[in-house]
């Protein structure tokens, strides 16, 4: 049997950070990732933060990857952070850039498929030299222990079994490792959010102009109010380089008690006039092909139109981006920007004249995705270890979600480094016991400022919201928050109140803050009373869920990775509505699954025998 020092299971940002740090410390490690390519299974909003906490040490992304700011495929540095309260066509906006900037070095919009693949390249370079590396396309299915020497034997669906001294479990929110070894129970709906997201294409220049930013700056817009369809949660819209991420994150228990299809949540957001206007673009409209023409002619036209549209998108996208223009000119195809524009308009004329193609206003969606997100405040593992296994990132239930603060990627990276440090120390001491390895890591995690943030209210962070809301009439905020606000607006009182609140405990206060009032009722009132009217010039043609699924990239697994245990349970019946890709249906009172469209989101995991698909199988995100 082959033997290695350390195995990292899962190649998301957290696992990759562990590999990078272990290699940096000169320790051999192999990382196993189920997806056929690193990044293909990861999904985020997302903004990646680098933080400077008041107290305590963390490892930020640019410290772990020294060339991050120069080389990494990051999208835009977020410089505007705005919260919108919505009610139909009324929008009331509040600038929360100060909250975004709070204790932050920066926050970049990122797309995980690209970013994780870059992390992997960096980590692999160092790991190679030590006889380790990254192995994609491998799904870990069981872990056992050699009773004599305590080493772990890892079994996968693809490879011969092998032996390791320590394991870092970075297998995400639906961690099979945690479940198979019994380190923790599956997270409950109260401990989770359901996140759903689409990627919209939009050329760089248009983004710059529309959002009032330069090419390396970006904007983040958050949404609450009627767009939530009465759920506790909200929507987001982040600008990337030449795409936009539009998504929604909802408390999963709110979804369980009042199931709404995830795609209608995102559709409602897309139909909000402000969002519609943000994402609109010129699009070619395919002509109807005359069905009376001979079949061959119809086919010829179809192919010719497809080719012209493809060319048009390529040239247009390049002509509306600084790097695109440069590369077209450098390639020698065109001499000047004017020449590019001229060829685009010639192409456009050709399309209209030859094939009666027209152009209109719409938006172009390129990817749909969904995933569960652990609410760190409610579910982080108290002891994030089991025997010689350390849990990091989403697998350990970590992630700071406080109001508009959404941080999972950076927390996972910091965890990964902590776990790597603990494992390196264990290798030096040749001691992989819970008392030594596990406790050392657990203590390090406890000392993390992120852990503190999940347990305590930070009065300075709170003040930002109070300042932002100072113009809001008190009667809108209502009887519920009135007295609190009053108390909080005075400096001394706020200190006392926060201390008192922290003694009472975050968990007791959460239900009050994370309520329908906060996310739905108050924002609706705000929009109605103070909002401005925003009108949209078109109505977006939103793809059906079937079209969205058809546009995703799958490698079908003939074996089902999910088994329904109780087809008549109330929970499973809700899955018919809550599965983001409609894998469930009900027939004769029984819920049945068709696993082929599954995107591994985990929504149904609570009451199913749930596994990730085998290596290389299942969903493959282009953006993530």
């Amino acid at each position, binding site marked *: 049997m082959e033997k*290695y020092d350390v195995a990292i299971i899962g190649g998301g940002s957290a696992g990759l950070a562990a590999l990078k740090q272990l290699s940096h410390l000169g320790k051999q490690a192999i990382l196993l990732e189920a997806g056929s390519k690193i990044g293909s299974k990861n999904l985020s909003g997302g903004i990646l933060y680098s933080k400077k906490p008041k107290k305590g040490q963390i490892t930020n992304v640019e410290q772990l990857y020294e060339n991050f700011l120069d080389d990494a495929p990051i999208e835009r540095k977020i410089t505007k952070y705005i919260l919108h309260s919505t009610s139909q066509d009324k929008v009331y906006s509040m600038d929360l850039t100060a909250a975004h900037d709070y204790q932050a070095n920066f926050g970049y919009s990122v797309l995980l498929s690209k970013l994780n693949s870059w992390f992997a390249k960096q980590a692999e370079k160092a790991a190679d030299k030590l006889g380790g590396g990254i*192995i994609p396309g491998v799904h870990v299915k069981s872990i056992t222990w050699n009773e004599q020497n305590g080493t772990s034997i890892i079994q996968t669906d693809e*490879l011969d079994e092998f032996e390791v001294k320590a394991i870092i479990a970075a297998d995400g929110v639906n961690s099979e490792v945690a479940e198979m070894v019994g380190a923790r129970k599956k997270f409950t709906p109260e401990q989770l959010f359901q996140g759903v997201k689409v990627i919209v294409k939009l050329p760089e220049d248009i983004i710059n102009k529309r959002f009032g930013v330069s090419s390396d700056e970006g904007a983040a817009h958050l949404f609450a109010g009627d767009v939530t369809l009465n759920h506790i949660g909200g929507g987001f819209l982040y600008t990337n380089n030449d795409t936009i991420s539009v998504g929604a994150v909802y408390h999963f228990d709110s979804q369980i008690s009042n199931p709404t299809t995830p795609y209608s949540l995102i559709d409602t957001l897309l139909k909000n006039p402000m969002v519609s206007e943000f994402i609109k673009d010129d699009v070619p409209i395919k002509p109807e092909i005359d069905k009376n023409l001979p079949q061959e002619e119809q086919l010829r036209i179809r192919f010719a139109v497809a*080719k012209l*549209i*493809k060319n048009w998108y390529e040239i247009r996208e390049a002509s509306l981006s600084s790097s695109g223009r440069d590369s077209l000119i450098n390639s020698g195809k065109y001499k000047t920007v004017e020449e590019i524009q001229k060829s685009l308009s010639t192409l456009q004329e050709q399309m209209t004249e030859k094939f009666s193609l027209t152009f209109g206003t719409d938006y172009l969606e390129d990817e749909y995705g969904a995933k569960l997100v652990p609410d760190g405040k409610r579910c982080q593992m108290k002891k994030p270890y089991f025997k010689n296994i350390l849990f990091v990132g989403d697998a350990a239930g970590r992630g700071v979600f406080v109001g508009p603060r959404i941080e999972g990627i950076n927390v996972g990276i910091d965890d990964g480094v902590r776990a790597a440090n603990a494992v390196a120390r264990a290798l030096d001491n040749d001691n992989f016991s819970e008392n030594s390895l596990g406790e050392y890591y657990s203590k390090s995690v406890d000392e993390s400022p992120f852990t503190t943030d999940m347990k305590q209210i930070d009065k300075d962070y709170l003040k930002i919201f109070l300042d932002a809301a100072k113009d809001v009439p008190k009667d809108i905020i209502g009887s519920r928050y009135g007295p609190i606000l009053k108390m909080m607006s005075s400096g001394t009182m706020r200190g006392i109140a926060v201390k008192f609140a922290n003694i009472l405990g975050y968990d007791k206060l959460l239900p009050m803050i994370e309520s329908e009032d906060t996310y739905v009722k108050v924002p609706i009132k705000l929009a109605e009373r103070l909002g401005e009217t925003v009108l949209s010039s078109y109505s977006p043609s939103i793809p059906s869920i*079937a079209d969205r699924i058809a546009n995703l990239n799958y490698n079908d697994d003939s074996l089902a990775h999910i088994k329904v245990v109780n087809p008549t349970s109330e929970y499973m019946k809700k899955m018919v509505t809550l599965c983001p890709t409609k894998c469930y249906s009900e*027939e004769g009172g029984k819920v049945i699954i068709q696993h082929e469209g599954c995107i591994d989101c985990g929504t149904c995991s609570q009451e199913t025998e749930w596994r990730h698909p085998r290596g290389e199988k299942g969903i493959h995100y282009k953006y993530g």
Partner: protein
Amino acid sequence: MVVILSEPLNIAVIIKLEPDFSEGNVSYNPNGTLNRAETKNTLGPHSAIAAHAAFFGRVMYDAKVSIGTMGPPIADLALKQAQQISDAGELHLYSDRLFAGADTLGTAEVLRVGIGKMQGKMDIVFSGHRASDGETGQTGPQTAWKLGFTFLGNVISYSVDLETRMIRAKRLISLQGSSNVIEEVEAPLPVFISIDPTYKSSYNTVSQRLAFQKYQKEATQRADNYKDYFKIFNAKELGVDETLVGLPGSPTIVYKVERVPKSTATRQSEVIDGSDPEQIRKVVAKMKEALAAMVIK
């Protein structure tokens, strides 16, 4: 202890640039024939499988891979793509007006001479099953015959014993009317392998996967600088016998190409709305009916 250092393995792959038939890349003339000028080209899908099989040798046996193709100057694109798959250290393009009009035999002669020009004595030559733009699957066997190598067709997997210089290969044999058979054969090197379309390399241990990753990265680096590995040969540089290549070397005469007439459909089709369970039930009922009428032995 005596360590016997076995001779390294040399692998050649012969590939072909073909039209890209995917939507958005392909163009047709009004008469329904392929518009070659407007259609993009790419490495043929069967050639790509042959390149994968060569890469297996690279990963498992640290083999040296060379690739050759006969075609127009733009065929360097196919060589680059095949290098990205196979991590080849040598790319050959055989290009000359004299080669025009060659049938499979004329092509095989160029490839035979080209393979002879590659570095090292070849142990295995891979070719794709066939080309997708109208070639008949004979180039491979004819090149094998000209090289005097043992020919193994429809190979779905292989392993090499470097010391005894023997190859073991599994071949997929389709028999008409009954199920397929997998034949396992053993042969001394050198051999010529035409790879089956269903071939898929499998790497079953952590160390093999790590090696796979290592060579794959090397392949990307090499393909990014493919010109450093690239050599173009004309007829003279190859030193081919001009009577054996191009039109003179091609005995096949294509005197007419006929389009296969479409038979009129005798079946009746009906479009079913998949979202309507009632309609699906009808389909199931029909399938049951059809199955009941069949005798299953």
